[in-house]
Structure formats: C-alpha cells, structure tokens
C-alpha cells in the first residue's frame, strides 16, 4: 500500500496572517525572505475580514501539468506535481492554469515554485491552520 502526504488547510479562521509559514517555505533552502515560497497568505480584503491561505490543493488530474508544453511537471504520488527543472522553459503556462493561484514564480531561476507537500511550513504555524496529512493508497 502506498503512503502519501499532502498539506491541507484545516481551519483558515484560525489564521492571524503572521506569514510564518511563507518564511518557513523559503527557509527550506537556507534562505530568508519569500522568493521561493509556495504558500501565500493574504487578507480576505482587509485584515478585518481574516485571511486566505493559498497553497497547492494537490489535484489528482492537475491542470498545471496538462498545459505544460515540455512535460516538466511530473504527477506526484498523492496529487499535485513535481517540477523537473531541467525541462522547464519558463513559459508560465502553469501559472495561468492554476485557478487558485498556487503556482508561484521564482524570478531568480525564472521557473515556477509549487508546493511539494513536505509540511515544513506546518511546523511553524503556531495556530494549527495548516497540517500535513498522510493518506494511504495515494494515486500517481
């Protein structure tokens, strides 16, 4: 039986907009700041309305991969995609295909950044908004 994991937003109403998760995601590469983050938190139209957490939903049949002309986005076990950097030509089609805006862009490499569902960010969310869930029998 396959075991796979995916990041999920448990309760967005608990989010305080601290963005600790965003900084954690770039820090996976030993850097500060945000350019490599694949999770994004913004207000729902003013702080008073609360926040929206944007992160890859791990689609089973991901539109982002479908529009990639070079097959650089390989399907990930458990949903979502994994980027094969050497194949990516930086066309940006995937950005447009993901309607929830979960394909982010790293200007430095001119390539997309998409969540790999590692759960590093969740360790730094003090309020339990996001969680890494493991599931059995994930599909590839």
């Amino acid at each position, binding site marked *: 039986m396959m075991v796979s994991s995916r990041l999920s937003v448990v309760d967005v109403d608990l989010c305080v907009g601290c963005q*600790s998760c965003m900084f954690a995601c770039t820090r996976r590469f*030993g*850097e*500060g*700041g945000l350019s490599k983050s694949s999770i994004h938190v913004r207000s729902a139209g003013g702080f008073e309305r609360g926040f929206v957490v944007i992160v890859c939903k791990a689609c089973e049949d991901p539109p982002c991969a479908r529009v990639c002309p070079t097959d650089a986005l390989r399907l990930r076990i458990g949903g979502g995609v994994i980027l094969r950097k050497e194949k990516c030509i930086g066309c940006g089609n995937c950005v447009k295909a993901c309607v929830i805006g979960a394909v982010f862009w790293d200007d430095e490499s001119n390539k997309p950044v998409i969540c790999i569902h590692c759960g590093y960010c969740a360790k730094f969310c003090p309020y339990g908004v996001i969680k890494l869930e493991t599931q059995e029998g994930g599909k590839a």
Partner: protein
Amino acid sequence: MSLEAIPSKILYIDLSSRSFWVKDRHELFQKYLGGAGVAIKLLHEEIKPNVDPLSADNVIVFTVGPLTGMYPLASKTVAMFKSPLTGNLGESHAGGRSAISIRMAGYGGIVIKGASDRPIYLAIHGDKVSFRDASTLWGMRSSYTVGRVLREFESGAGIRSIMRIGRAGERLVSYACVVTETYRHFGRLGLGAVWGSKRLKALVISGRRSIKPKDPKLYREVYNSIFDAVTKSPLMKKYHELGTSMNITPLNKLRALPTRNLKEAHFEDADKISGEAFAERFLGRRVACAHCPVSCIHLAILREPYVTEPYFYKTTMISYDYELIYALGSMLRLSSPEGLLKLIDEVEKEGLDAMSCGVALAWATEMLERGLITKDDLNGITLKWGDFDSYIRAVDQLVEQSTEFYKALAKGVEYASKRYGGEEFALSFGGNEMPGYHTGPAAHIGYLTGARHSHLDGAGYSIDEKSLASNVKLNVEQIVDSLIKEESWRQILSSLVICYFARGIYRPDMVVKALKPLGYDLNEEDLNRLGIEILREKYRFKFREGFDIKKLKLPKRVSETPSPSGQISPEFVMEGVNLYIKKLNLE
C-alpha cells in the same frame, strides 16, 4: 534576486522633481545595523539645521534592519523626521507589513525629500517606482476608504504595505499619524502632518525577494531556537491573549492610570473598559504583523443598530490597545466601551495620534470646566467628562480647525496653553502629550529625556514599578543610570527593528547569535558601545535643533496628583533630567 544578508540599498525619492535614485550604503548598515542607527545618520546628512518641519526642506527617513525578513518579530519600520509637534527630532515606529515590504522590495531604507505641488501617492513595487496622482484620494473622509481604494488598484496582495494619511495629515494637525494596514500607526510626533505638507497621501510598497545568509545552516539553527522561544514563552502569551490592554487593571489598582486629565490616577469604572472586558464582550479577531507569530493586534467588533431601520446594523472592526484606552478612555472618563470604540474609530478615520488627541481633548474639557474657554471656542460643543458624543464631534472640529481655539489645539496642548492659559494642567513633555503611566519619577524623567518622548524610552514606568514591588526607593542617580542603560540597549533593538514586546527574547546573547550567520561579527560589548553611540547621535541632532533643558518643564499637575511612588517632586525630576544629559557625556 536574492539580497545579501546585510542590507545596503537606500531608495532616495525627490517629490519636487519626481525623481528617484538608489545608493549603496553598505557601510552605514555594517556600522549602525539599520533602523534607528542608520536613520539618525541619514537625518544628520539630509536635514539642514533649523528647517521648518512643514516645509519642503524636511526629510522623511524610513529604515528597516538586517534581521527583517530573516527572523520573527524584526517587524518594525523606523521613521525619522523633524517633528512639527516639538520642532525637534521626530521618531516613530510602526509594524504591520511595512518593514517586511520595504526589505522584500530590496531596500534597507527610503529617504523622501522635497514636496509635490499636487496630491500624490508613491507606488514602489520592487525596482519600479511610480509617482501617481492622488487628487481623488485627497480629502476622503476616512482613512479606511483610502486603504480600500488602493488595495483594489495596486498589485501585491499579501506582500505589500499600504501607508496613508487621513484628513488630519492633509490639514497639518501637528499630531497627525500615518496609518499602515489600517490598524498600525506611525503614531507619535506628527509624521502625518509632514506627509500632508509634502502632499504625499499614501505609499504602497511590495516585493518578494529572498536573502542569502552567510551561514545558512547556522541561520536555520538560530531561527529555530528563536521561534521556539517566541512561541513557547509565557512572556509573549500575554500579548497574544489580552494584548497590551491587559495593563488597564493592574495600573489602575496601582493608582497609576491617568484619569480626567490626570486629576486622578485611578478610574472608578476601569473594569468596564479593561482588556478583560473588551476580550469578553467585543474581541472579534486577532491579527499579526508580518513575520510575527505572536499576533497581539486585537480587533473589536462593534454592532450598532440603525435607529430608522429595524434589524439593520452597522458592523465595524476597531483595533484597541492600552494607549488608546488610556488616552481616549480614562483620560476623558469614558465608561461606555461602545462609546470608547466609536471615538477610537473616529480618531482612526481622521488619522490622528490617539494619545496626543486624547490628552488634548482632556485638557480642553478642563479649560471649559474652569471657564478659561467658552462653548463658542469649541464651536458650540460642550465637552463633558464621559460624554463620548461630544468628543466624537470635537474630533471632527479639531481636524476642520473650525475656530481659533481648535486651530491652536491642532498644534498641541503646549502651544494652545501658551495662548489660552491652563499651562499647569497641560500634560505636555517638551511639546509632546503624556503617555499613560503615572507610576513615579522615573516615568516622568523618561518622558522629558526620551528621543521619542514615549513611555518606551528607557521604560521609566518599569523602573518605578520594580522599585515599588521591592520597596526600595531609588535615588536620582540610580534612576538615571537604569534609564540610560535601558535606553541605549533599546537603540540596538530599534536598529534591528525588533518589536519591543520581544525584548525578553532578544537579549544581548541572543542578538549576538542572531547576527552571526548574517555576517556580522559583534559581541555584547560592541553592541553596548554602539547603543550608547546611537543614543548620543540622536542627542546631537536634538541639540543641533535647539533642544534646551532650561526650557523643559514638568507640568504642575504631575506633581499635584499622587503617584503610587508618592508625590512627585519637580526638583527631583529636573535633577534627573540634568543628570541624564550630563551622563550622556555629549562633548
């Protein structure tokens, strides 16, 4: 593009010629870290002596620090300028997303010079700087609306800061503030009026860089230990749960909560407007500054029924804090929390410093009570302790400056009391209105000597509180020594733009550790030396601009109303002020 861990770029903007340029000032950040340290150096460079604070010659400096974007709670932006309220050094700090946005756009600081001939706003998205017409935004009645318009119009949701002024800034009220992300402020000393005089309505800034530490492995290790300390510390928990308004109850018990223009230091209805009362009855949401897991920003929900429409409600979210509850609450003897929230909301919409505004209204109430002014001076409004409606109407008149009296009051209580009398109970400290701690002599020596004239300068209130708790009366020298020690360390914290709430975590050894992976090689002694040096730099600027101890005075009211440390002696306080300056050893 990734940036180096030590910031270097300063964005210079000239509003007169609508031009901008970027300079590498690595040497400044290497030596003075960032924040307050770099800002005071830039101010010395940029402002010629004795300029008029409301002229095109005034300069606004914003700085962030090397820890911004790297570690949690390095989330403040330092603003320095010449203050229209005191005519001297103006320093004000704000959180929200301001600091992160400036750093992520690629800058360590921004310098704004000159003045525009018509309303303008600045949009800075990374390297792109645009000067945009703000005629439509000018005169808008609510600073919330300005934020909403810009939110729709500009890009960068989630990674931007939207700073703006309200009508108070446009109309040059000397204590107008700059609002950022609706609920945070560059509150004190009138930055909003300086923006208004430059016809600068707003500034939007965004960016999404990353930063390369010198030692990535060590960086992650240090990060984890700081994050752990922040999220597990009981110290931070209190800011999260009740927020700063938790102070109302203990300060009132102590009899240190200024009430009715400090006629008293105890408010009989404090339990109605305490942090506990607000949390239980009104708290609607907690939010955080960017890269701060604490989330101390408390938003209350106010639901008001329409009189004419059954089952129709106006729902407003209003942020509250200790200082607001003190200045607009106990000082005006407001015991209705709903009324207090409405007044806070009004002050927020207009873009005024809540503290100066509350003290000004309290002074005006006493002026009327004593017959030193009349209802006519107030354009028909009878200011009465506890009557929030009259205060809400007066805020509007104050911003409009509809009478000679309001015009004077818009310049602060010191100015107004020189013209109308009532100096004995005008709670002004070197031109700035009093913060909410009547704890004892250390607090008041701190208000008179501090560069920001804030209770956070040297934390005099906490020196008083400690001496009360341990029942040891400190002599003047001991007080001054602790004030200077604390204040010079705070120069380091504010150069690293660390939120003061995290001062218990960013202790000297932790700061040394945090700086190491970024490429700074400093030990605790170096930091202490630098702290004193930055403090002295500020004083050099103050003296250059005419700061004069002989002109400083402790308001008589302070020595009349007993503090928990007993009756405050003006001689003792002034001795402390003199000693403070002497010990700084400026020559």
